């Protein structure tokens, strides 16, 4: 009798594990996809196969290029079916397959047909698909339909067009900007989501026009916005307007504050929260303005929804940093959140309490936290540690109890990030609170006695080497450091040796003892440790310049390690010794990213968008593959493409200027946008009469330029070696044009010679400047010295704002902004920007720009240049003076 029951249980287990995709295989599904080619399509079957393909892609399966192309072509056949369900799946899979440009052409006409269909669903989806897979060239052809769709009666169609517009604005801003009338109309739509999408797009189109944004905000804040989402957007735009106009009003009344406060009474929680957050983030918000926002946030704290509690406590936590008093009203609610099930909420609550508490409550809270620490995840512990760090800086008198808390948790179990946060905090406290220094250093010493993280051990040893010698009794640290030499792995041992050497260099009385210890290290089993010991014994033992030795021990390496590593790998042992100055200082971020994503290129879902290859590498490869240019030497710089044609002309041409020491190569990238034409033997005839120092030496024509498949033609010039020659070039595109029959795609045999005027092109001084950053500008500036410094002042005339002026000068010089100084805080009246670069001939150049706004909009600039060559310093001034 038991048997059937057991059987039933088995069945049930099977059922639980059952999946329609069990044992699914890529090869088999690709075979199945052949049904797409059947003359009699079975929509249901086809939908199932598409679902399987989507499933595979979704699971991270990748298709080879050939497989993806094959599937794509098969899928295009399905446009013949009129089954709505199937068509929907076709749209989805086309997006997932992310077809290449030449494949897109195959579906373009089908999608364009759907775009003008009577069926709303077709129109909406065809727009989304086409806009996602198309490039700029096609856009001009469908622009008319998109504009219509924006004001379509069907909200789904309108939203599809608007959202597509938002995406296209990133790549083809000039086209999308032409739609603003239609978008403006859509903002008035009665459909909630259409209004949201239209508002988002309209704002993005106008975001650089402060006046227009201002007008948009003032008209909408008076009117009625229908969807909560749109209302949230409006709140964001309003606070932006407030931010930008704040400095102009002296009266104290903030424009639009009433609107934000009114939103606190909106029926959607999303909007209430957005408004409350916006108020708390106002520049220089007053306690009076904060009151009502904090009241609604306080209500959220006791909500049953975790998301609401979280949002509220997180915002209050931020407010507590600047206005702790304003948040104290919520303390009781916060206390109860310490035991919240959701540990993120609990952590935020307790750290808020730490910020709002006064000095006397610190000890009580610390006690509470101690019980609390053991049962939260590392990530939240880090938040707590950061709160304690700022508490300690706020109440330096409490450093003893806070430091001992930190050292206690340092001894407990924990992951790397957590331990690192604690160590970082102790380091900061040591730096900022002199009284905490000695005890802090000893805590760190004790920690490395039993530390499982090599990285932290070496960091602490390094820090000890800098701070330890400056303490009242440096000798007490030696024991801890030397213990490492006995007990640790080679990396830490090597670090310890360096630290010992630093003590030896700084503290004369310890020098003899350090020598004894370092000599013992000469017998270490590890090469690095022995080498370091030998090196330091020699450096410390030499009677030479003390300053040199200190620079050697304490100075920093100002080249990126990656480049250093690569140069060392490329170095072949020879008579010539390795020259550290030959290491490039520019970091190739792209190359790194590529390393992280090795192997085959995945397609569709689960795959990354194809990363552009590191451009300079790609150019270098391209140019060296052309025999005519192979002997030009090392490529110094390639410019960004410069457009030589207006948008939407028959032929699109842009040019990249490749600068070599004694040559310049123009790479003309041409695109033929006329389907009925095939161009052959394409060349650019360059007139260099306004570029006296240049002489044409070679030209490489493009044999054939079919419709919509870009190709390149090159022209090379000789110029005086190492000289930043400038000049103007006029360009004429010359080619043989052949008619193409659009239905067959075949070209006629006979062609006609034709010409097409392109815009002029200039080689300017900035083309000879390489963007190369420095890690520490001030050090680099000081070490360059004032010998070749050139300083002058310039009047830049009226400018939109400071940021615009700063950008203009950076672009003019083509140099690398350092230390984030290219960012100008909004509303600032003056700004300093630091630039660095390498000028042709490998001359390092540093620039310090000081901007100030004179009067209403007039920008003045002081330009200081330092370089290794005064001629170059002068040249930089020349660039600015003539720009």
């Amino acid at each position, binding site marked *: 009798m038991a048997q059937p029951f057991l059987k039933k249980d088995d069945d049930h287990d099977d059922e639980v594990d059952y999946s329609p995709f069990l044992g699914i295989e890529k090869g088999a599904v690709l075979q199945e996809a052949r049904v797409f080619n059947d003359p009699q399509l079975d929509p249901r079957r086809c939908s199932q196969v598409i679902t399987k393909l989507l499933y595979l892609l979704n699971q991270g399966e990748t298709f080879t290029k050939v497989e993806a192309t094959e599937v794509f072509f098969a899928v295009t056949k399905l446009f013949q079916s*009129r089954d*709505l369900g199937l068509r929907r799946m076709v749209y989805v899979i086309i997006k997932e397959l992310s077809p290449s440009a030449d494949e897109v052409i195959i579906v373009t006409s089908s999608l364009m047909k759907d775009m003008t269909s009577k069926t709303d669903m077709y129109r909406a989806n065809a727009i989304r698909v086409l806009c996602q897979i198309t490039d700029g060239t096609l856009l001009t052809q469908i622009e008319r339909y998109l504009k219509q769709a924006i004001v379509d009666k069907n909200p789904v169609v309108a939203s599809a067009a608007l959202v597509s517009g938002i995406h296209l604005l990133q790549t083809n801003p000039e086209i999308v900007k032409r739609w603003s009338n239609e978008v403006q109309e859509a903002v008035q739509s009665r459909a909630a989501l259409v209004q949201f999408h239209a508002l*988002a797009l309209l704002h993005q189109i106008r975001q650089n026009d402060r006046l227009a944004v201002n007008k948009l905000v003032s008209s909408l804040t008076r009117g009625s916005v229908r969807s909560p989402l749109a209302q949230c957007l409006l709140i964001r735009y309003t606070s932006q307007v407030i931010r930008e106009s704040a400095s102009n009003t002296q009266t104290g009344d903030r424009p639009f504050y009433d609107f934000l406060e009114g939103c606190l009474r909106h029926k959607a929680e999303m909007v209430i929260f957005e408004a409350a957050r916006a108020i708390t983030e106002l520049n220089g918000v007053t306690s009076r303005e904060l009151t009502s926002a904090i009241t609604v946030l306080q209500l959220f704290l006791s909500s049953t929804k*975790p998301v609401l509690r979280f949002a509220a406590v997180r915002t209050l936590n931020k407010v507590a940093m600047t206005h702790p008093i304003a948040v104290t009203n919520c303390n009781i609610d916060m206390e109860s959140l310490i035991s919240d099930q959701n540990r993120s909420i609990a952590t935020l609550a307790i750290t808020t309490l730490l910020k709002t508490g006064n000095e006397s409550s610190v000890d009580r809270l610390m006690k509470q936290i101690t019980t609390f620490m053991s049962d939260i995840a590392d990530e939240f512990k880090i938040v707590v540690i950061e709160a304690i760090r700022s508490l300690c800086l706020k109440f330096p008198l409490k450093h003893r109890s806070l430091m001992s808390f930190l050292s206690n948790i340092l001894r407990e179990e924990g992951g790397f990030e957590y331990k690192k946060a604690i160590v970082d905090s102790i380091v900061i406290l040591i730096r900022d609170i002199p009284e905490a220094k000695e005890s802090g250093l000893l805590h760190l010493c004790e920690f490395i006695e039993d530390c499982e993280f090599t990285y932290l051990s070496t960091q602490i040893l390094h820090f000890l080497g800098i701070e330890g010698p400056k303490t009242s009794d440096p000798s007490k640290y030696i024991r801890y450091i030397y213990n490492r030499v006995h007990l640790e792995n080679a990396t830490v041992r090597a670090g310890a040796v360096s630290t010992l050497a630093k003590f030896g260099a700084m503290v004369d009385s310890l020098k003899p003892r350090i020598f004894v210890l370092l000599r013992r290290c000469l017998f270490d089993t590890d090469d690095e440790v022995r080498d370091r010991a030998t090196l330091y014994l020699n450096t410390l033992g030499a009677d030479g310049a003390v300053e040199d030795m200190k620079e050697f021990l304490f100075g920093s390496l100002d080249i990126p390690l990656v480049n250093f590593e690569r140069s060392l790998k490329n170095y072949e042992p020879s008579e010539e010794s390795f020259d550290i100055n030959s290491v490039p200082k520019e970091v190739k971020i792209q190359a790194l990213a590529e390393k992280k994503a090795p192997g085959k290129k995945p397609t569709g879902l689960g795959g990354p968008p194809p990363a552009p290859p590191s451009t300079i590498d790609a150019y270098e490869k391209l140019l060296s593959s052309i025999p005519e240019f192979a002997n030009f030497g090392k490529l110094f710089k390639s410019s960004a493409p410069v457009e030589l044609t207006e948008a939407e002309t028959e032929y699109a041409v842009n040019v990249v200027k490749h600068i070599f020491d004694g040559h310049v190569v123009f790479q003309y990238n041409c695109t033929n946008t006329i389907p009925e034409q095939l161009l052959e033997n394409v060349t650019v005839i360059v007139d260099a009469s306004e570029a006296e120092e240049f002489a044409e030496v070679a030209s490489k024509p493009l044999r054939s330029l079919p419709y919509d498949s870009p190709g390149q033609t090159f022209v090379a010039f000789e110029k005086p070696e190492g000289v930043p020659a400038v000049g103007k070039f006029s360009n004429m595109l010359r080619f043989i044009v052949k008619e193409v029959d659009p239905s067959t795609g075949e070209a006629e045999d006979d062609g006609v010679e034709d010409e097409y005027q392109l815009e002029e092109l200039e080689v300017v001084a900035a083309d000879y400047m390489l963007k190369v950053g420095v890690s520490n500008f001030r050090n680099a500036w000081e070490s360059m010295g004032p010998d070749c410094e050139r300083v002058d002042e310039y009047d830049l005339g009226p400018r939109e704002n400071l940021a615009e002026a700063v950008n203009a000068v950076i672009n003019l010089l083509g140099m690398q902004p350092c230390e984030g100084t290219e960012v100008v805080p909004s509303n600032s009246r003056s700004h300093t920007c630091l630039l660095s670069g390498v000028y042709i001939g490998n001359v390092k150049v540093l620039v310090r720009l000081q901007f100030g706004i004179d009067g209403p909009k007039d920008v003045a600039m002081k330009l200081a240049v330092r370089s290794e060559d005064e001629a170059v310093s002068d040249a930089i001034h020349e660039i600015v003076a003539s720009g």
Partner: protein
Amino acid sequence: NSCPAVKNILILDSEGKRVAVKYYSDEWPTNSAKLAFEKSLFGRTLKSNARTEAEITIFDSNIVIYKFVQDLHFFITGGDDENELLLATVLQGLFDAIALRLRNTIDKREALENLDVIFLCIDEVVDQGMILETDANAIAGKVAIQNMDASATLSEQTISQALASAREHLTKTLLK
């Protein structure tokens, strides 16, 4: 950019395996980066009770809102300065739309059986990171599958197609 953006939508099973996922941000460039994110997020949230109300956490400097039902785990990720309630609304919209389409039996088996519906729902909620629709009825309505294009007449269907769909309709009703 002040426009709300969704970085990904994940539907995982009770072991953390993918049922359906969609990424809109290149923050996770490779499949292994995505899998690693899913794995650690799943581990982190596994023990929480996100069944009655959606739960929330900060994870790798992103806001993640999640909700569990039966053996399915739904996640939505946004930037760390995103409006939490707004993201929660998107997740709820997707969740409710799927519930509508699957007639309230949401579990892994049902989801896999109707994976096309799940993909379509996700496609209707977010377009390349931009919120497209949050109203569950509207989403479900758009995903509802009508059989034929209105402009196609019956005569254009072949006899075999008509028979096939009739047979299918019959099996469906019998199986109910």
